[in-house]
């Protein structure tokens, strides 16, 4: 199929349609609204379900109901809207149902603003509501990757009876890039032994997140934990740039990752041997490759559009085996490559240390600069 110039949010919507989306439930919020708007005409046109709910709470619980039938279903929102959905996500996870959520992150906390940020890393990777469950989190950096990961999110959600989140941001949602859409897949209910959509001719099935008998709840929790181990073993994805001979490595996901790529190229042109590791699945995190990279470089720079939420994971995984520095812009401000390049220069010049806290060193520099 030929390349088309597509807007990120609309590309995600059409990718979901082509992945077999049967029903969508959402509530408008910038910078995600084009996704809902697109589906508001596209879904009825195809005879599929679309509901603009009364709120994010309504939307997520409609997704819960649709997921019980074994339909491919999704919602989408942006940071404050996702906060409202967390209770419902926990119920969906507790009932072990497949569902897809697109989070087009914006600046915050609170109402914040509508500019791009990565403030929901912890909310999606380490949060997601109460209880012992994890959500698959896929972080695209371009319109094409947004399409590919949306399709993948549906497949992984179904395969693992899990929630899969496409964790993107206002920049990727609003930009247009040439991209290729996949072929339209046939719409069909999942072939499962758990879905409830009429019990004629078979035994009754029951779906719930309630286990009043604690040992039964423990069994459910263990099942989820084992499933996550399987996901960790099979579904890690990342992209490496210029790491083969690198003395230094930058780590960043999504928009921060692609901005870092520009800086890495500039540094390479200056003769600095630096590479980039861009996690594509931020949950499960590419821990193995991060450890390998950490062992062979002299120093690492973590770049984010939040105050170091992924940094904590990088520090935990690398376990002090490599000096780490940190750089971020917050609150909806996108970093420019020149700012990341300054940090790469600092890294290359040294001195580097595994002592102290990279976040507080960054905060001191940032406070002096602004």
């Amino acid at each position, binding site marked *: 199929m030929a390349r088309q*110039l597509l807007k990120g949010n609309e590309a995600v919507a059409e990718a979901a349609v082509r992945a077999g989306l049967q029903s969508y439930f959402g509530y408008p919020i910038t910078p995600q609204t084009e996704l809902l708007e697109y589906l508001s005409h596209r879904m009825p046109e195809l005879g599929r379900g679309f509901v603009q709910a009364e709120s994010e709470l309504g939307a997520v619980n409609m997704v819960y109901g649709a997921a019980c039938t074994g339909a491919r279903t999704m919602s989408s929102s942006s940071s404050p809207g996702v906060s409202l959905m967390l209770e419902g996500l926990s119920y969906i996870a507790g009932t072990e149902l497949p569902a897809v959520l697109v989070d087009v992150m914006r600046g915050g906390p609170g109402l914040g603003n509508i500019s791009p940020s990565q403030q929901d890393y912890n909310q999606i990777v380490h949060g997601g509501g109460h209880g012992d469950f994890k959500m698959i989190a896929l972080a695209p950096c*371009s319109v094409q990757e947004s399409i590919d990961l949306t399709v993948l999110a549906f497949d992984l959600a179904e395969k693992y009876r899990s929630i899969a989140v496409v964790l993107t941001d206002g920049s990727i949602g*609003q*930009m*247009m890039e040439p991209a290729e859409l996949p072929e339209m897949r046939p719409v069909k209910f999942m072939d499962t032994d758990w879905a409830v959509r009429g019990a004629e001719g078979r035994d009754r099935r029951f779906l719930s997140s309630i286990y009043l008998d604690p040992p039964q709840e423990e069994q459910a929790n263990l099942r989820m934990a084992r499933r996550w181990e399987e996901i960790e073993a099979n579904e890690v994805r990342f992209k490496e740039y210029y790491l083969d001979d690198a003395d230094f490595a930058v780590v960043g996901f999504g928009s921060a990752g692609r*901005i870092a790529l520009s800086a*890495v190229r500039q540094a390479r042109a200056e003769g600095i041997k630096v590479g980039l590791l861009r996690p594509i699945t931020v949950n499960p995190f590419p821990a193995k490759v991060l450890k390998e990279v950490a062992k062979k470089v002299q120093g690492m720079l973590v770049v984010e559009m939040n105050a170091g939420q992924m940094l904590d994971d990088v520090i935990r995984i690398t376990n002090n085996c490599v000096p780490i520095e940190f750089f971020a812009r917050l609150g909806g401000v*996108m970093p420019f*490559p020149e700012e990341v390049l300054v940090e790469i220069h600092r890294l290359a010049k040294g001195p580097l240390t595994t002592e102290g806290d990279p976040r507080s060193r960054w905060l001191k520099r940032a406070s002096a600069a602004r």
Partner: protein
Amino acid sequence: MQTEVIISGFGGQGTLFAGQMLSYAAMDAGKEVTWIPSYGPEMRGGTANCTVVVSDEEIGSPLARNPKAAIVMNLPSLDKYEPLLQPGGVLVVNTSMVNREPTRKDIKVVLLPANDIAEKLGGQRLANMVMLGALLGNLPTMVTLEDLEAAVKAHLPARHQKFLPANLTAIREGAAVKAQ
């Protein structure tokens, strides 16, 4: 090779659309391209701009602090982007809407009264295409005028196809204006 262009003006001057046409031209010429609008709470008559990055390889940052080129449709845009252009960059200025000349000497400056030219060709709304033509006439390394003309033909919405000849003339008129 990578080229970054900022197209900036008042809302309604067609800056976002001009950026999209440039993006189509780049895409159809087989290049990588990223178009990103400024978006935010804006009032009527507020500023509207977009950044277009054209490259031969995977594009990193969608934004550029120091772009290679800028199309400025009004005075606030000239004031904002003239100081930010890369040395040697191209600045295309709509003199119909500004009351001063650029002051930098280390850039290529293209001056043209785009609104007046557009008016003669059939309407103010062609000013964005006049300006885009002027950019490509003076920065042919990114995409060619022929690429742009083909893209406008292919991607102008069906309901606007009747305006195609005027748009093509506007591009040519703009391209005929050379840097000072």
